[in-house]
């Protein structure tokens, strides 16, 4: 019996079934009550059916919250990024007080401010660190972190490029890593191999690394405590990992929007080669990170392929090929990619409909859901898309009415999950409760 071989011989549908069956098995944890266990199984089943394009008992709802719990608990993002007790307190308060919901987002997307400071991260600004302390989100600082003439270095040896060029640019504390020779130079009797590690600046960089590691573990304990409590109370997690499209990786955090768009004209071949390289790195690192989480879903936030960012032809030439490659690599491992298209994707619907039926889920922000249902409805589960503006400035009645309309358009036939177009950090919790009311009242199959 060779299990390994059996897996490699399975079709993606068989692998998918096995992964989902595992997700649908009662987890080996102690639920707070038999009722919690029953609810957990009901909820997971509800989501699994919707993701698999089937009809669940009713439309499931993903609450569109990111840092909402911090503000619900009368704290703020700045505080909970630094104070893990506050992080736990606020998220637990939301968990215990909100009421019925189909799932729960743990605080895993709130990074540790202490960890980020230990390594002097420059790629992001966060409240009190580059942007005003009362800002409710952290934000990426776009820049040219990889120069136009560095494509060859990236393509030839990405690890070395990351270690000695990219990391020193985005982490102030890693400036000195430029002085470390490539690890591939360590061989034979290793007489000179470690001299660089005697340099005070290199030692300081490595100490920063250790400090960041120590903080990360403290932070992770807090996050896991809350997430596990949520599971024990019967609320499933619905994201097993995060990933990105290769064009976005290059455009967001390496070349920047300006840079990547110049490259489309000036060095398209290099851009394609780099995206191929990044695609294989992304596939490997994402599959490794999802590991044993047991949740067979990978969320992919999408940025620079949205309507208006590029033409359909440019999307087909530059964005889609490596994006599709990454998607299909996950699909072929039985994982379902949940593709979160920020902005709108109205002009992309025909192209993306070429993916195999049931292989992916599309989460839309501002895409026309009627059009999406028409083109993709029998091919992919759809998620979305109550506007954040309505959730933050509207009344519960208005939210509920909007949800009713969305359910009428998207729910028929199954394969629909109600959620926000994007997530909110602040606002009236009754507007979120209105979403739950709507799925119970209008979303029963």
């Amino acid at each position, binding site marked *: 019996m060779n299990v390994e071989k059996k897996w490699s011989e399975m079709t993606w549908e068989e692998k998918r079934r096995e992964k989902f069956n595992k997700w649908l098995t009662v987890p080996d944890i102690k639920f707070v009550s038999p009722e919690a266990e029953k609810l957990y199984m009901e909820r997971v089943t509800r989501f699994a059916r919707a993701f698999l394009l089937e009809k669940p008992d009713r439309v499931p709802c993903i609450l569109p919250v990111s840092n909402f719990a911090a503000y619900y608990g009368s704290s703020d993002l700045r505080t909970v990024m630094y104070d893990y007790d506050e992080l736990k307190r606020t998220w637990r308060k939301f968990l215990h007080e909100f009421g019925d919901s189909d799932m729960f987002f743990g605080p895993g997307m709130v990074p540790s401010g202490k960890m980020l400071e230990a390594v002097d991260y420059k790629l992001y600004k966060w409240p009190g660190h580059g942007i005003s302390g009362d800002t409710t989100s952290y*934000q990426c600082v776009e820049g040219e972190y990889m120069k136009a003439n560095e494509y060859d270095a990236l393509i030839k040896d990405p690890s070395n490029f990351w270690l000695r060029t990219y990391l020193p640019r985005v982490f102030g504390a890693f400036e000195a890593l430029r002085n470390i020779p490539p690890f591939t130079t360590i061989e034979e009797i290793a007489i000179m191999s470690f001299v660089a590690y005697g340099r005070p600046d290199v030692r300081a960089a490595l100490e920063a690394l250790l400090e960041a590691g120590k903080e990360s573990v403290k932070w992770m304990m807090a996050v896991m405590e809350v997430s596990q409590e949520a599971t024990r109370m019967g609320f499933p997690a619905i994201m097993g990992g995060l990933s990105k499209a290769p064009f976005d990786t290059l455009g967001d955090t390496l070349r920047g929007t300006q840079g990547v768009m110049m490259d489309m004209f000036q060095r398209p071949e290099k851009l394609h080669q780099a995206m191929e390289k990044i695609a294989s790195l992304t596939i490997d690192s994402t599959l490794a990170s999802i590991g044993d989480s047991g949740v067979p879903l990978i969320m992919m936030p999408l940025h620079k392929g949205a309507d208006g960012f590029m033409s359909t032809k*440019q999307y087909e030439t530059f964005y889609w090929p490596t994006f599709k490659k990454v998607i299909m690599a996950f699909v072929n491992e039985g994982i379902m990619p949940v593709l979160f298209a920020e902005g709108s994707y109205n002009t992309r619907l025909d192209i993306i409909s070429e993916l195999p039926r049931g292989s992916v889920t599309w989460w839309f922000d501002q895409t026309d859901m009627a059009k999406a249902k028409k083109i993709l409805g029998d091919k992919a589960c759809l998620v979305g898309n109550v506007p954040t503006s309505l959730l933050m400035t509207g009344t519960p009645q208005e939210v509920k009415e909007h949800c009713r309309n969305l359910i009428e358009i998207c729910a028929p036939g199954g394969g629909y999950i109600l959620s926000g177009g994007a997530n909110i950090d602040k606002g009236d919790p009754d507007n979120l409760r209105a979403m739950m009311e709507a799925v119970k009242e209008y979303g029963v199959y």
Partner: protein
Amino acid sequence: MSGDLPTLLADLKDKEVLELVKKKLDSGEDPMKILEEGRKGMEVVGQRFASSEYFLPELVFSGELLKQVTDMVKPHLTETAETKKLGKVVIGTVAGDIHDIGLNIVDFMLDVNGFAVTNLGVDVPKEKFVQALNDTGAPILGLSGFLTPAFDAMKETVAAVEAAGVRDKIKIMIGGGQMNDEVKKYVKADAYGKNAMEAVALAKEWTGVK
């Protein structure tokens, strides 16, 4: 030479553009005329963007190309001529938000459509918007924002314009990421623009340009 400067620029023929500019400068052509032709080329780029023939990559590329042309021409300029502008507009991304892709598209499109744009950049405090309106005398303010925290920052910025006593003289438009008409009402702006073309249409309407 295959084509005139505005056409070559609008068609993004970078090598030909730079060669032609060099030739024109070498033959002693009026540098102001070259810049004017560059402006005309960019106007066409703007039209093609408005009609969805061009997208962000073409704006970025043509912008870089024009920069190179301007850099070549600059040393030959003896005077700085003021081109007549349709009107002044102050724009910026509101406090707590550091996104500027949309902001820069609006800047580009207002500029090629003849407006004098004061772009304050990102994470702009409300006081700085008020100051810029005072300094420039611009009758139009464009507020950009990508994320939901921008809702309140926009509201506070509009309130600051009000508190400065100039609200009735200023038309305010908002746009970007999560913005829409609901947010427009919430922040008490005069209009929401879905894209850069709508920003131009609003600016023209408000300045009485046909």
